Every structure is written in C-alpha cells, then in structure tokens.
C-alpha cells in the first residue's frame, strides 16, 4: 500500500494502444491510472496499490478475464467495469452476473466511459445504498415505499415496485435480467424472462416512460436494464 494520494483506476488490457488512449483520456479527466497487460499483473497491482476501480478487458493472454474477476471478487468489492467485444453477448452477461458492476462494448466512446466511471465511483464512495431517487419529476422513496410522479402519488403493484426499487438502489448501473428474476421471482424462474418483460412494460406505462425514447428505464439489449436520471 502506498498510503496517501488519490486512488487509481487500474486499466487491464493486453493491447498497448488501448491502454495508452485510456490512460491519456482518463488522466485528462483528472484520474490517476495504473496499467496491466495481463491477468496476473492486474491481480498483483489490485492487491498492492490503492485501486478505486478496475477497467477489465475480458480477452487477456494469460488468463480469462472472467477468472480475473472471480479472483478479485474473492477479496474485494471494488467496482469493475468490463470491456467486451460485440460478438460475445453471453460473455458480458456472465461477467455481470459474476459480480462486474458495468460493461462497455468495444469500440466505445471516451465520453461514455467517463460517465460510467463517474457513476461507479460515486456509488462506491458513498457507503450507504441510495434510498431515494429524485430528479424533479419522479421521486421514489424506498424507505416509505412511495412513488411520486410530477407531484402525484402513484400506486405500483408489488413486483413493479420491487423492480423499480432494485433499479433505484443501483441507479446508473446495469442490472441483468437474471439478477432481477432471481431477486424477485426466485432462482427457479430465471428462464421466465417474459415475466420481466411484461412487468417492465407495465411499469414504464405507469411512469409514462417509453422504450423508444426512455426517460428513466433504459433497456440494455440482451443484458438488462439501467435507471438513469436525465
């Protein structure tokens, strides 16, 4: 441990060019960065340096990114942002279910990366789970189990409220279908994605939200949902 100084963002990717441009753009945004070209190196750095967040590429030369993730999760809850290629849809879902906090598909914009990192760092910085969501129009109070839309209280069926609550607790971050299904319906319903689709559809309608122009609940195709305050 180096003790003082701001915590760093650990960039794990075997491609030098990608590491380099990430370093440059993140440093430009004011973050300290560390780089690792292999899984082993990443694990060593994560354990010995002050690391605030890991940007992890799933394709590594020495070990599978999923394995790096698993070993990290054995001892730390530090946020992990996974990078994956487009062709491997199942990979990113697996990583999310295995404890990754968010993902980005290559190629990605620097701006988007910055936004994701900010959300993750904010969430990990505040030790308590948010219990209130309020963007001026929609207000969700988890403690009092109340939902207000444009000042008016709306009653949500239990499941729809629970989905909303789950999204609020993880606001800004992606929640996989599997996580929602297991948490709300139980592990035996993990295949019954149509429950979720129907419930989300109804929730959106009650909130006046639209899938094609989402205000709050964003669909991550093939992965899950994300609550974003506009």
């Amino acid at each position, binding site marked *: 441990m180096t003790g003082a100084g701001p915590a760093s963002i650990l960039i794990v990717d075997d491609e030098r060019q990608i590491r380099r441009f990430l370093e440059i753009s993140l440093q430009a945004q004011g973050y300290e960065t560390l780089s690792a070209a292999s899984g082993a190196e990443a694990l060593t750095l994560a354990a010995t340096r002050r690391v605030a967040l890991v940007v992890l590429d799933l394709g590594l030369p020495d070990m599978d990114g999923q394995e790096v993730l698993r070993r990290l999760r054995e001892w730390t809850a530090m946020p992990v942002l996974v990078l994956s290629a487009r062709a491997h849809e199942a990979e990113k879902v697996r990583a999310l279910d295995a404890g990754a906090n968010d993902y980005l598909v290559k190629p990605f914009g620097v701006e988007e990366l910055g936004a994701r990192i900010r959300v993750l760092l904010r969430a990990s910085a505040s030790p308590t789970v948010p219990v209130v969501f309020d963007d001026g129009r929609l207000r969700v109070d988890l403690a009092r189990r109340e939902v207000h839309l444009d000042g008016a209280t709306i009653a949500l*069926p239990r499941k729809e409220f629970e989905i909303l609550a789950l999204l609020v607790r993880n606001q800004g971050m992606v929640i996989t279908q599997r996580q929602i299904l297991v948490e709300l319906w139980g592990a035996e319903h993990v295949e019954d994605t149509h*429950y979720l689709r129907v419930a989300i559809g109804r929730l959106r309608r009650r909130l006046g939200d639209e*899938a094609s122009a*989402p205000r709050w609940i964003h669909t991550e*195709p093939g992965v899950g949902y994300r609550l974003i305050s506009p």
Partner: protein
Amino acid sequence: MPEAPTADNRSRRAKADALLEQIEREEAGQLKVFLGAAPGVGKTFAMLSAARELMRQGIDVVVGLVETHGRAETEALLDGLELLPRRAATGDRAHDEFDIDAALARKPQLILVDELAHRNVSGSRHERRYQDIEELLGAGIDVYTTVNIQHLESLNDVVQQISGVRVRETVPDAFFDRASDVVLIDLPPRELIARLRQGKVYLPELAASALERFFTASNLTALRELAVQAVADRVDADLREYQAAQGSGPVPVRRRVVAAIDGSENSEYLVRITRRIAERRHAPWTVVYVDAGRAGNDADHRTRLDTALRLARRLGGTTETLRGVDVVDELLGYAGRNGVATIVIGRTRERPLARLFNRTLTQQLLMRGAHFELTIVATPMARARSRRALLQTPKAPLRDYGFALVVSLVALVLAHLADRVLSVSNLSQLFTVAVLVVAVRSRMSVAVFSAIVCFLGYNFFFAPPRYTLVIANGSDALTVVLFLATALICSRLATRLSLQVQMLREANAHAGILGRLGRELAAAADAGQVTAIGAKTLAQAFDAEVTVLTPGPDAGLLATAAAAPPSMTLSTTDRAAADWAMNHDQPAGRYTDTLNAATCWLLPLIDDGARLGVVAIRFEAEETVLSSQRRDLIQAITHDIAQALARTRLADALESARLQGETERLRAALLSSVSHDLRSPLAVMLGSAESLQRYGARLEETERNELLDGIVSEGQRLDRYIQNLLDMTRLGHGTLKLARDWVAVDEIVGSCVLRLRKIFPEVRVEHGAPVDELPLLYVHPALIEQALFNIMENAAKFSPPGVPVRVSAEQVGQEIRIDVIDAGPGIPAEERSRIFDMFYSVERGDRGKHGTGLGLSICQGMIGAHGGSVEALPGEGGVGTVIRITLPLSGVPMPAAATEDEV
C-alpha cells in the same frame, strides 16, 4: 488312462461349469428386471424406489432414462436422483432417446433404463434398447430395467392368443435369462382396471380400439399367470444353479429336447413351444431340420425355415441342419448321438395312403423311436384343418375324383359308339387317352383311381367275356399294367410341369424385383438414396444383411454408404475382401475362391469401367451354397445399382460445378464490396489523422474539429460494416444459433431508434401509437434488432432532410408486422424483390451512391432464420418505400400473474 465318466466326475464338472457361469456373470454388470403383467402395474415406481434406497446406501445411481408418463407420484421419486440428459433425436421431443455414450462416459455403478422392449429411433447405435443395455452390462455397469410379460419373445404367440394383440417389440429370452434378478411387480387385475379407469395407465403401444380388448379381467388374469410362471421358473432355475454351484442337491441330468421342423407355417410355433417345454425342464434344446432334398427351390419354404431357425437361436436354443434321405433315420440318429430325451414334432399333414401303411413320420417315430419321449404338438394350422374337416367335406380331391369318373364315363360312351368300328384291343386306346387326360390334370392318386375305373369299365363292357370282370387272357392283364403305367408316368410328368410353372413364377418375381428396383432407382436423386435403395432391395429380396460401400473422401478408402439393417458391421476380413473386389473388378469373399473366410459375398459395382463401390451381402451362416439363379439375380441388381450410381455421380459433378461458379461469383462480389466499404472510411480516417499530425498547428480550430469529427464518424461506420460482415459469415456458414428470448417489440424498436440517433442525429423517427399492447416476441433479440436497425439505417440514409422515418408495428393474426416507411426516392418495382438478394446488394455496392452494403441481405437471413419474412413495398401515394418485416408469434406467454398484486 482314460476312464469312463462316472457320476461323480460328471457332478464335479457340472459344479465347475456352474461356478464359472456365476463368475462370468458377476464380472459383467448385473441386470435386474422389474417384470409386470401389463402396463400400469407400477414397475417404474418400484424400480425408482429400489434405486433411491440404494442411493441412500451410498451407491452411485444414475437415471439413464425413465418414462414417468406424467404420473405425479412417479415423478416425485425422480427428485434428487441424477438424471442423464437425453440424446435429442431429430424431430420432436417425444423421440428423445437414451444416450448410451453419455451413460458409458458417466459410468455409474448403477443405471436405470426404463422400458426394456423399446425400439430406438432409426439412426441410433443399436436398434433396440436391450442392446444398449447389453453394452452397459458389458462395460461393467449394473442396470435396472422394466418390461411387461407380453414383450417376452417366447410368449409372443401365447400373448396373442390370449389378448388378440400381436406385440411387435419383443425381447429375446436369452437376454431376459441374463438378468441376475427378476422382480415381479404384481397387481390384481381388478385394481389395475380401476387404475386404468382413473387414467393412471399410459398405453403407448396399443391403439385405442385394442385397448378395450386387451384390458379385460380375463386377459389380465392370464397375463398375470404368465408373469408369475416366468418368475417361478426363474426362481427354480436359480435355486438349482445355486445348489449345483454349492455341490449340494441333485445334479440335474439335463437331457436335451429336440424339435424337428419341416419349414411349414407351423415351424415358428413349434420352436416357441419347444422353448417352453425345455425351459420348464431346465433342459438344453435344439431345433433340427432334416434336408431330404425334397423342398427344392421353394422360396417361401426356405424363408419360413430360416425365420424359424433364427427365432430358435434368438430364444437361446441351438439349431442343426441334417442331410439325409430318410427323415426318421436322421432324426433318430441325431437324438441317439446327442443325449436327447424328448423329440417334439408338429402334427403335420398326413397322407391317408401313408397312414394306411404306417409310413407317416409320427407313426414311424412311434415305432422306431420307442426309447424317446415323443411330444406331438397340435399346431394352430393342424387344429384349424381338423376343424375344417369336421365342418365340410374336402372339396378339391373329391372334385378331382369326380372329374376322373366323368372322363372315364366319356371314354366308356365313346368306346361304346366306336365298338362297331374298332377292334376290342384298339378300344383300350380310348381308355388310355382318358387316363392320360386325368393324369395330366390331377394328382397321382386320382390318376391311379381313373386307371382302375377305366380298366374295370373296359374289362366289364368290352373285354371278352363281356359283362364279367373275368380276365380271360394275358393281354388284358397287360392292359391293366399299361393303364397304371400311363397314370404313373403322366402324373410324374405333370408334377414336373407344375414345378416348371413354379420356377416361371419365381422368374416372374425376380423380374418384379428388378422392375421395382429400376423404378425406385430412377427416382433417386443422389448417391445416398441409390445406395440406400440398393441395400434395402437386396436385403428384402434375399433376406440377407447388405452393406453398400463406396470410396470415401480420403484416399479412396471404402466407406459404408448404406446398410440394411443399419446395425450391420463388417469384419476386417470382409473389408479386405471388399478392397480386393474393388481393385480386381471381381466378386470376392464367401462363395468365391478369394478370401472366402469372409462372412459376406462381395460384389464390385462397376459401370463402364468406372469402379463405383462394393456391395457386401451376408446370408445366414447355414446357407453354404448360393444357387445360380440367386447369383444371376443379385448380379443383375448390382449392375442396376452401379448404373444408377454412375448417373447420380454425373449429376453431382454438374451440381458442384454450378455451386462452384456461384461461390466464385459471391467471392468476387464480396471482395469488391470489402474494397469499397472498408477502404473509404479508412481513407477518411487516415487522411484526416495525417493532416492533423502534419499540419495541425497551422489549421484553424474549426478545421481541426471537422477532421476529428470525420475520424470519429467514419470509425463508427467501419464498426457497423464489420458487424454486418461478421453477421453475414455467421449466417452464411450455418453456424448461427438462435438464442431465443421473450422480448417486447417496443424495446427492440427503442434500442434501434437510440442507435440510429447516434449516427443520424438530424433524422427524426416517428412510430405509430399503441406499440406497447403487442404480445411479446420469442426471438433472438440481438439479431432482430440488427435487422431492424439495418432497415431503419437504410431508410434514414435515403430520407429527404426534415421528413421523418416512420416505424409502425401491429399484430395481424398470429404474426407481428413491423413497417419501416421512408419518403425517399423509392425502389423501382422490378428491383424490389431483389434488394434483399445478396448478389444484388453486394454487386452494386461500388456503384450505388452510398451503397446498401450488406445491410439488407443480412436482414433477409436474420428474419428468415426466425421463420419470418422481409419485403419491400411501394410507399403510400407512390412516394418512398415501405419495408415490411413479418415475424410469427409463438405461443403468447401468460402475462405473469406474479406481477399483479398491489403494494
């Protein structure tokens, strides 16, 4: 010093044999059979209960395959047991099969495999499930299985007599005998019928009409008795075996039971009966056929004989074919040499005359085989005949005798008329003609009868002294002899004639086979069908096993192209002979001088000097000679197969040349597309970056930003293009797997709109109002999204500025229809159907303004993979284009009730 085997010696040997047998059985896996009298008695339930108990004791138990038929209490027992995944057969799930390879790989201590009598779907390793189980046992895995008594081969006839239902899925008794334990699952018929009424019995193998007949109290009682008897027999046998192994108890003197069959319709029945007799006495048994050379070339007879002998071997007996003139001599000789106690014969047709002279088989055996027990079985045929005989007088012979009488009378009348003209000795000629006519038309006994009548008539009316039966001179005596001689010779000739007719018929049948083969071969489209038809035809026509081998892809080594039955395998010798036959253009293997240790006869398939393959034909082992007729016919058939093969080969060559051309065309088109679609964005990116690198300092802020924007947007374009290229190779190689999931239409439209907004921020998208009331789609979300995105991107590209692209979705019947409408220049009618064609979009890639790239042709593939369709229609009022995606809805899921209850 050799000593005669004493009783002591014999007993010691018997003990050793018994022990050896026990050891052999113990090394292989143990088989436990749960036997029931009828479906629904609870065999599977009992099996699962036993398995659970063993699992509790720590035995490694795996459920290979269990059919619960939806019975809840049985299903409950499966809970907690390890289930082996089934091997998905092609087609529906109902035909999923037991996965023997998975079982062998898993190698548990004990595996449960339900329904022993099951017939596997074609294409499985073994035809029958008991063969799968045999392999498992061979691998040292213990097996529990279930079977109903009616599936036992030896009881097949009895069950049919009881129930009127012929069970086709039989299990050889030899296999059943392997079981180290048989557990009888017994349920009183009344309870079973009650269960049936409650719908607790699942009856796959019986049609509904057969069901009522089958499930009567009397049937069930009889079946139950059979089942109990079978188990009792086994218990008895086990006890003896155990005692023999321990050396206690009486050493059974196992005297052989022999059945003599003649190849009549009764033969199979006789074999089954014999098996039961032998079983009850725990005696070894043999089925013997004495070939006295009388059967000739009767194909039916030969087939029946083969079937019966095969059946005997399947039932665990041995077979023997004896050759000799006198059936009785051979039979008794064999019985004497082989320690036979009992001879079983069927009650066969008996000639009255032979009975008169004690010449029937039965009588002779009774007289000469006094020291054997003789069992004469009333066979179904004989019983039916005796019943017929009681009901009605036999017609045919009587009619023949009547005919003989009439002809004789006519001769008499003619002789009377000619009496004035001809001398007495010449009159006898008339009667000769009469006898001749009768002899040719009828059998020998009738001919003799007519000879006697004619002689009596001639003697009484014409030979002097007239009107007496006195034979006055030697010439009259000669007349008698002549009449008899005529009768005998002519009837013999007539018999030969009928034999020839028989042969003609056979030739006809052969011509029929060739004709049918020719028709089927003409319809065959490829080499695979030709070989399959060839193998099937040969196998059926000659009751043989047939494999067709054709040169494989690697170095022309022979590979199996078709086999009938599919389970047929070739030994190394067979293969060597096949290679020889192929390379020397001559038959090899059995029945030839080359490599005749092979079990097959191998015929090369040659057409016009081209070596096309080899046909391997395996006849029964007993068939030591091949008649020349068969030889000729088989050669004719193989020639036909060779010709058909040559024809399909030519067609294949043409087809592959055409495909080759098409692939070339596609390759060229793709290359030109790649050069355009990949290079133009790269050119922009490289050029812009280099400009910034070299002249960055000298450029204006706005110019720098312009160049940078160019790099970003062209990079994004490249990304999309590469995604399309990847998708296309996935679609083109058939490696695409649909990962279907439930997804809402508006979510797909939504994410497309969001993606589109990033590329064309200025393009507006409008979509029809009530999209969220639509049922969910069951599709691969990413693929459908990509297809819709490509269409929307295309529409956005061609839309005039300021005019929105419209997207609407609606349900039409059992389909979802998504329309993407643009106000662009539209597509000429004659090109509309072609825009989704890969050649079209690719070939015009370099010429079009932006080029549609690969986008639209990929849509076709992706939507098509979901069973949907894409089409281009003219826009409203002739402006723009409507691209319509139609996707089938698959079974709307219940809107989860779980989402309802309020907070």
